[in-house]
C-alpha cells in the first residue's frame, strides 16, 4: 500500500518540511554556538573551546545535554502562564520564516507572494516574547531589559521596513523567489549599497546582538529579560536568537546578495543552496566579528543612531529610488 493512499501528499510535504526546518534550526544553533565561541577566542587570541572532543567539537553537544538536564526553575511570584509562554513565543516566530526562505530555486517550502511581509510580520513578534518574558519574571533586571528591547525593536524596525520596501520597489514583487530571480543579472548590493549597510546595522539591532545588546547587557542587567530562565527555557531564547540571526542574514542575502546565484554547479536547481548558505554564513561571520570588535552602545546613542541617521537615510534612499524608477520607466 502506498503511503499517499491514506496520507495526502500535501500533509506528507508539511510534516517533512517541519522536521527538516526544525532540525535545521537546531543544527544552525549548534554550528553558530561553536563558531561564535571559537571565533571569540581567536579574536582575543585564545584557542576557544579545546577540551571536549577534538578542538572542542563536542562541547556544544555536552552543553546542550546539560541544558536539557537542568531543572526548570519557577521563581516565586512569577506570572506562571506568561513565564512559560514567553520562551515558546521567542522560538516559534523565528522558525516560521524558514517556510518562505528560498534556499535554492527548488528548495523552498512555500513561495508566498507576500513572503517578505510575512517574515517582517512574524519577526516583530519577537519583541512581544521579550516583553512577556521581562514582565512575567517579576524581576527588575528582566523588566528593564525587556523595556529597552522593545524600544530598540520599534526604532529599528522602521529603517528595516523602509529599506526592504526600496528593494521590493526595484524588483516589483514581495515574493522572495521573485526577489532573487530579479537579481540574476546584477545583485542589488551594487545598486543599493546604502540600503544594504542600513539593513545590516538595523539587523544587528533587531537581533539584539552586540554592540546593540542592551536588553541583555551583562554588566548592568545580569542577563536582561532571560535572567530568571533556566534549562530549556533559556535554551529556547538562545536557539531563537541564533535562528533569528540566520533569518536576518538570509533576508540580506535574498535582498542584496543574489540569493542562490553564484558560479553554476551541477543540478543547479538544488545546489544553489551551497551559494546561499555560503553568503549567509559569511554575513553571520561579520555579525560575530562586529560583536567581538565593538563595545556596547549607550541607550541614547542607540536611539540617536536609529532616529537621526538610519531612518532619514533610508527615507531619502527610498524616495530617490522611487524617483529614479519612475524616470527609467518613462
Amino acid at each position, binding site marked *: 500500500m502506498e503511503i499517499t493512499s491514506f496520507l495526502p501528499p500535501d500533509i506528507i510535504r508539511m510534516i517533512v518540511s517541519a522536521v527538516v526546518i526544525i532540525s535545521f534550526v537546531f543544527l544552525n544553533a549548534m554550528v553558530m554556538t561553536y563558531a561564535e565561541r571559537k*571565533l571569540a*577566542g*581567536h*579574536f*582575543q*587570541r*585564545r*584557542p576557544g573551546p*579545546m*577540551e571536549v572532543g577534538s578542538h572542542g567539537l563536542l562541547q556544544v553537544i555536552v552543553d546542550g545535554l546539560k541544558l536539557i538536564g537542568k531543572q526548570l526553575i519557577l521563581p516565586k511570584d512569577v506570572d506562571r502562564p506568561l513565564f512559560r509562554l514567553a520562551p515558546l513565543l521567542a522560538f516559534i516566530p523565528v522558525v516560521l520564516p524558514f517556510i518562505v526562505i528560498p534556499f535554492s530555486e527548488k528548495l523552498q517550502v512555500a513561495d508566498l507572494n507576500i513572503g517578505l511581509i510575512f517574515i517582517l510580520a512574524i519577526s516583530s513578534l519577537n519583541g512581544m516574547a521579550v516583553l512577556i518574558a521581562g514582565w512575567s519574571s517579576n524581576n527588575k533586571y528582566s523588566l528593564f531589559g525587556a523595556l529597552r528591547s522593545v524600544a530598540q525593536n520599534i526604532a529599528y524596525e522602521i529603517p528595516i521596513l523602509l529599506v526592504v520596501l526600496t528593494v521590493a520597489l526595484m524588483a516589483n514583487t514581495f515574493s522572495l523567489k521573485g526577489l532573487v530571480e530579479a537579481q540574476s543579472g546584477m545583485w542589488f548590493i551594487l545598486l543599493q549599497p546604502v540600503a544594504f549597510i542600513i539593513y545590516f546595522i538595523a539587523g544587528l539591532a533587531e537581533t539584539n546582538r552586540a554592540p546593540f545588546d542592551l536588553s541583555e547587557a551583562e554588566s548592568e542587567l545580569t542577563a536582561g529579560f532571560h535572567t530568571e530562565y533556566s534549562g530549556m527555557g533559556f535554551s529556547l531564547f538562545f536557539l531563537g536568537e541564533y535562528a533569528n540571526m540566520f533569518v536576518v542574514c538570509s533576508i540580506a542575502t535574498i535582498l542584496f546578495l543574489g540569493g542562490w546565484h553564484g558560479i553554476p554547479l551541477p543540478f543547479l536547481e538544488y545546489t544553489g543552496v551551497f551559494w546561499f548558505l555560503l553568503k549567509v554564513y559569511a554575513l553571520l561571520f561579520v555579525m560575530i*566579528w*562586529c560583536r*567581538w*570588535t*565593538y563595545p556596547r552602545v549607550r541607550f541614547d546613542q542607540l536611539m540617536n543612531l536609529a532616529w537621526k*541617521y538610519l531612518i532619514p537615510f533610508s527615507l531619502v534612499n527610498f524616495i530617490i529610488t522611487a524617483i529614479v524608477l519612475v524616470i527609467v520607466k518613462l
Partner: protein
Amino acid sequence: MSGYFSEILTGGKSLLVGLGVTFKAMLQPVVTVQYPREKTDVTSSNYRGHIELVRNPETGSFKCIACGLCAKACPSECITVKSEKREGVKGKVLTVFQLDFTKCSLCGSCVEACNKGAIRFSQDYNIAGFTKEEFHYDLLKRLEEMG
C-alpha cells in the same frame, strides 16, 4: 546640522579600522596555554614569588651565612633562621631556614637586607594549597631537593 556628515565619515572610518584590528588579531597565533596541562615559565625578572635561597656556585651549597639580618628586616616576622657552630668550619652554619608564607607580603625587605646575595625571589606561581601548613616553607630543604 554642522558636522553631521563628517561625523558619519569619521565614525564609519574608525569602525572599519576597529574591524581591521580584530581581524588581524584573529589571524595571529594564540597566546594562551591550556593551563593545567601546559605551563609557561615566568618570563619577567621583576616577578616576586616567595623567597628562596641562592646556591653558591663554587661550593654547591647555600650562600647564606646565617647572620639573621633577613629575619630582623622582616616586618611580619615570617622568617626563622637557626644555625650551629661546627668544628673546623669558620663562622656559623645554617641549619634551619623557614618561611611562613601565609604572613609574607612580598615586600622584599629581606632580599634588600641580605648583603651576601643569599636570598632572592623565586619564580614559583603554582602554589595553591588546602591547609595553612602547606605554606610554611622549609627553604633549606627546598634548596637540597632542587639538586
